[in-house]
């Protein structure tokens, strides 16, 4: 019988293999519109992973993950417009968001903020950023050649080029593959991190923060590390969103974006990495299809579905699917097994 550790790695290996197959075959098998649509899912999946990691594996419930998403997008936009290349701006977006998360996290965790207070602070900081960027419409709010544009946002953001090749602007298929490679890379890295000592301490903090401290671990430092990693991933997703749309506006900082991220993770399954990706694809696809109908306001239908989802599958879609599979396996005489994230 496979040990739990082996099963975990087998699960991650299976997801990675499926991801690589999607990376190779989607641009070949699907038309342009569908490839663009799937690129959107990939970017938002990365964004969901940023929250899935800090919430599911560190117990940090951030209501303001959009803050990193927007900051990453704006950083990429401003730097790319000024620098005439996209590789360094992409790295800058990740780095700045990591720094911002570290600074914010320092005050929150070393100030011993917990639970609801942490949620409120992250939300308020994000709304401050949203308000701030909304008031940058005048020509005086420029950074180099990039005008921030206030509520109008920044248009004509350069499309990402192949790394370190400023003249090789990505085609939609290439962009999909590049972003998919980033998503797979982050998924694998997070999986490795979760299985490392750092990850195990993080889970221990999620389970019982006081006891983890009483075991001699500096809970504040670990939480700071977790939050910073989540901020960096959120920033990367924001930069990818900005180049995908070639446009960014203050709505990327909005409460709606933060709330959607929470809903994707919650619906997909907190405490897993694959679940939130399922949540993004499922709910975004549903929104797209409901938007095509005129029968009833699609938000009402979406809200009703979410309510039933929370009531019927409180663990989320993916963990419930795993439970079902384990139940079926036991029914046919298998030995059952543990959940793999």
């Amino acid at each position, binding site marked *: 019988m496979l040990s739990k550790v082996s099963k975990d790695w087998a699960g991650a290996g299976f997801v990675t293999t499926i991801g690589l197959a999607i990376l190779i075959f989607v641009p070949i098998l699907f038309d342009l519109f569908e490839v663009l649509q799937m690129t959107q899912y990939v970017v938002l999946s990365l964004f969901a992973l940023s929250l899935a990691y800090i919430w599911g594996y560190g117990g940090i419930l951030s209501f303001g993950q959009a803050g990193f998403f927007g900051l990453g997008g704006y950083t990429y936009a401003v730097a790319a417009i000024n620098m005439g290349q996209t590789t360094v701006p992409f790295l800058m977006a990740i780095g700045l968001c990591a720094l911002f998360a570290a600074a914010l996290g320092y005050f929150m965790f070393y100030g011993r903020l917990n639970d609801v207070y942490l949620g409120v602070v992250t939300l308020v900081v994000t709304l401050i950023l949203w308000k701030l960027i909304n008031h940058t419409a005048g020509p005086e709010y420029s950074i180099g050649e990039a005008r921030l544009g206030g509520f109008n946002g920044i248009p004509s953001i350069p499309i990402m080029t192949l790394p370190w090749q400023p003249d090789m602007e990505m085609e939609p298929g290439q962009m999909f593959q590049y972003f998919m490679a980033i998503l797979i890379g982050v998924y694998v890295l997070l999986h490795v991190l979760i299985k490392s000592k750092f990850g195990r301490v993080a889970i221990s903090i999620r389970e*019982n923060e006081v006891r983890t401290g009483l075991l*001699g671990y500096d809970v504040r430092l670990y939480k700071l590390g977790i939050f910073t990693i989540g901020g960096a991933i959120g920033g990367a997703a924001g930069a990818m969103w900005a180049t995908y749309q070639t446009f960014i506006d203050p709505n990327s900082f909005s409460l709606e974006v933060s709330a959607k991220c929470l809903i994707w993770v919650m619906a997909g399954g907190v405490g897993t990495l694959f679940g939130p990706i399922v949540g993004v694809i499922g709910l975004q696809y549903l929104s797209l299809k409901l938007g095509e109908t005129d029968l009833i306001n699609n938000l009402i239908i979406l809200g009703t579905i979410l309510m039933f989802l929370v009531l019927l599958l409180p663990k989320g879609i993916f963990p419930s699917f795993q439970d079902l599979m384990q139940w079926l396996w036991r029914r046919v005489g298998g030995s059952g097994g543990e959940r793999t994230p």
Partner: protein
Amino acid sequence: MTAAEDRPLLSTKELTMRFGGVVAVDQVNFSLKSGELRCLIGPNGAGKSTFFKCLTGQLKPSAGSVLFADQELSGKTTHDIVRKGIGIKTQVPNLFDGLPARENIALSARQNNSQRRAEEITDEMLELISIAALARRDVGSLAHGERQLVELAMVLAGQPRLVLLDEPAAGMTGEERGRLATVLRDLAGRMSLIVVEHDMQFIREIATEITVFHRGRVFIEGDVAEIMTHSEVQEIYLGKEANGAA
């Protein structure tokens, strides 16, 4: 006895903790020898829990110092204090509810030991506390008294030099309390222990030396017989004003 052995393992000097205008711990001088088991008692509001929290780093003292093995602890964080060799058992058991008792203990043992040694220590702790029957049960499903015992095993698995226990017998059955008393008596001598406790029957079972707190100060220190028969201590516990209280 050498001078080093004679030196206290833990001592406080003029330790003071103020909350605004309220002085919860007032210039407390306290010392504990290596291998000693000391009980801290006192009525509600006497300052013993605040004193305990100053020792564990949960509160930063307003003034004074805490020395452990000649190292200053005052102002250090809880995890720093734990790393120096102090095990802390909180009033409300803090355990990993989703894990079996055995894994909870092994996690603590794994801190400073190899996997194999940690397993050995875990077995020793399960036997020492007599909780082998609980080893495979998730601690979330255990009764309060059983959780207290698992937490004690977890603290001891970290192989501390000094153990601080805040009301360890709370919520225990008579049988569990007896088992705990036996364990604590056995541990004394091998390590130092400070027990904050309300249960006078339990204190009679374990204590040799007692420190009585009253109004944030050390009111009296002495052996069990002396303290239990002290008229002013009895008055304090009965709620009467102690004449000449320090």
